[in-house]
């Protein structure tokens, strides 16, 4: 029997931002190939494309399209905004960084854009299938981005480590998904929650096995201990600009699917996943903060700090309350600005042929370039969580949410590890302000870098002083 398929064009509306970004990605490759002399416009084209997509997403109305597979709700809009702003900041920095490392331009920007499409799809996924496809669409370009700078020996090592670990994590995740499908007969995340209730599956051993596989897969993706072992190596080996991107984009998108599945799909199992995540969050903060203490490379220190911050962000998720999820969302938004800012300063220090990634290279930065040192100071204070920077606001609401949900010991641990983290963040500040410079070259700023640093500063200081609108937005996103 031949049946005709009618296309419901109303469904296409919500995915227009993704379609726009896909066409921008193809256009970037085409421009790079056919008009190599115009390569300097590629970053600006990327920024314009992402800004347009961001405007479209902010203006979109809540909808459920493709039979519940693609959701445009407040939750997805919030995560999509973080991801797109992250991509825009990365692009602005890349315009500076390409003077230091000559990476292929067209491929670089289009991979960035394709990865952004993957993140948008992850944030909107209402079905395990779409979630998996978005995840892989995000991850595959990032594997390539890590290994794109082939002249350096370290990058291919970082790329293969990232690739193998990512593939392994995806396989674990998929097996968990197949078990969930077998138990409930559906892959729709919202329906799974309902069916678990109606079929009384809450204590089913197979479902718990599926939950542990899912947790392991997600923890790999957002670099939560004990599944974090790939992170420091990959972050150190990748070009700094890609590291900055990876520590924000894929991590935030990972948290989007993590909270989507646990909070919207498996809320009945909170008694099982809440305590597990509490232990993992404590372990992550311990591993990240304590290992960061003994790092000599600033880049590797920031990698461990990124691991520790994944632990903090888990605090909101493990609470399993609306308040907790919105605290995690707020924190991720703030984390993007402060982490990107710190990596931007690291990029400023680099010169062609000499990465200058060690903490020693910060010595006397205040004498060489007072502005860069002051900015780094603000970003590091924010990463530590010192008021009045935004980092404090973010951490405060996370701790409040976890405390309200009854995880007192985890909160105590988080505060202690936060105090420990002050040591290694402020050590950099001491090197910048209280030692003599080892070299006298001044730092070069490109227009893109100035804009990126300005945005990060506005984000960190502005959200620290006036957090109201962000908190409102995050709270409204879950209604």
């Amino acid at each position, binding site marked *: 029997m031949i049946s005709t398929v009618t296309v419901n064009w109303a469904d296409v509306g919500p995915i227009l931002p993704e379609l726009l970004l896909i066409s921008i990605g193809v256009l970037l490759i085409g421009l790079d190939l056919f008009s190599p002399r115009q390569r300097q416009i590629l970053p600006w084209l990327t920024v314009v494309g992402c800004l347009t997509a961001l405007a479209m997403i902010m203006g979109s109305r809540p909808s459920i399209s493709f039979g519940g597979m693609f959701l445009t709700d407040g939750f997805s809009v919030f995560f999509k905004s973080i991801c797109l702003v992250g991509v825009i900041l990365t692009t602005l920095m890349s315009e500076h960084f390409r003077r230091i490392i000559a990476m292929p331009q067209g491929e670089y920007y289009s991979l960035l854009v394709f990865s952004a499409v993957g993140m948008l799809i992850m944030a909107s996924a209402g079905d395990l299938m779409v979630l998996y*496809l978005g995840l*892989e669409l995000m991850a595959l370009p990032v594997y*390539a981005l890590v290994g794109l700078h082939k002249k350096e020996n370290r990058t291919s*090592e970082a790329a293969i480590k990232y690739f*193998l670990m990512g593939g*392994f994590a995806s*396989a674990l995740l998929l097996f968990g998904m197949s078990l969930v*499908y077998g138990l409930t007969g559906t892959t729709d995340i919202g329906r799974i929650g309902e069916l678990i209730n109606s079929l009384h599956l809450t204590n089913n051993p197979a479902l718990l096995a599926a939950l542990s596989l899912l947790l392991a897969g997600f923890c790999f993706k957002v670099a939560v201990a004990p599944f974090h072992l790939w992170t*420091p190596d990959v972050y150190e080996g990748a070009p700094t600009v890609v590291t900055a991107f990876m520590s924000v984009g894929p991590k935030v998108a990972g948290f989007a699917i993590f909270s989507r599945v646990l909070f919207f799909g498996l809320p009945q199992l909170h008694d099982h996943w809440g305590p597990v995540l509490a232990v993992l969050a404590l372990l992550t903060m311990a591993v990240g903060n304590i290992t960061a203490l003994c790092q000599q490379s600033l880049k590797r220190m920031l990698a461990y700090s990124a691991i520790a911050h994944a632990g903090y962000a888990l605090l909101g998720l493990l609470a399993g309350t609306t308040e907790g999820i919105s605290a995690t969302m707020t924190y991720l938004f703030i984390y993007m600005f402060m982490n990107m800012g710190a990596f931007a300063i690291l990029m400023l220090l680099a010169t062609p042929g000499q990465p200058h990634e060690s903490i020693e290279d910060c010595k006397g930065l205040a004498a060489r370039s007072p502005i860069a040192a002051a900015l780094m100071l603000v970003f590091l204070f924010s990463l530590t969580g010192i008021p009045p920077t935004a980092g404090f606001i973010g951490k405060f609401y996370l701790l409040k949410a976890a405390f309200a949900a009854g995880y007192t010991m985890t909160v105590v641990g988080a505060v202690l590890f936060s105090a420990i983290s002050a040591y290694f963040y402020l050590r950099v500040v001491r090197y910048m302000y209280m030692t003599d410079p080892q070299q006298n070259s001044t730092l070069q700023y490109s227009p893109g870098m100035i804009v990126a640093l300005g945005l990060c500063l506005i984000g960190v200081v502005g959200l620290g002083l006036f957090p109201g609108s962000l908190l409102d937005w995050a709270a409204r996103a879950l209604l």
Partner: protein
Amino acid sequence: MIPLSWYMALAVVLFCIGVCGFLTRRNVIVMFLSIELMLNGVNLNLVALSHFLESLRGQTFTFFIITVAAAEAAIGLGIAIALYRSRRTVHVDSLNQLKG
């Protein structure tokens, strides 16, 4: 009629062989093959469940997994070639420049 549990047991066995291979083997290509084996365990699981649940979602999912695995292979082998060009080996124990 072969019962569902047999298929699922085979899927679990395949998946576990993949996990063991990934954790014990030291050659990048063999580790990658182990991941493929894990994915095929998942595929078998999904297809069997889809047949017994009489729902097409599982089979659709399998198609997507196969497609993505192909794309993943292209990228993974590309990275492996880049690695071989710089190191003349694809042995994991030689990947020791990044540590700390």
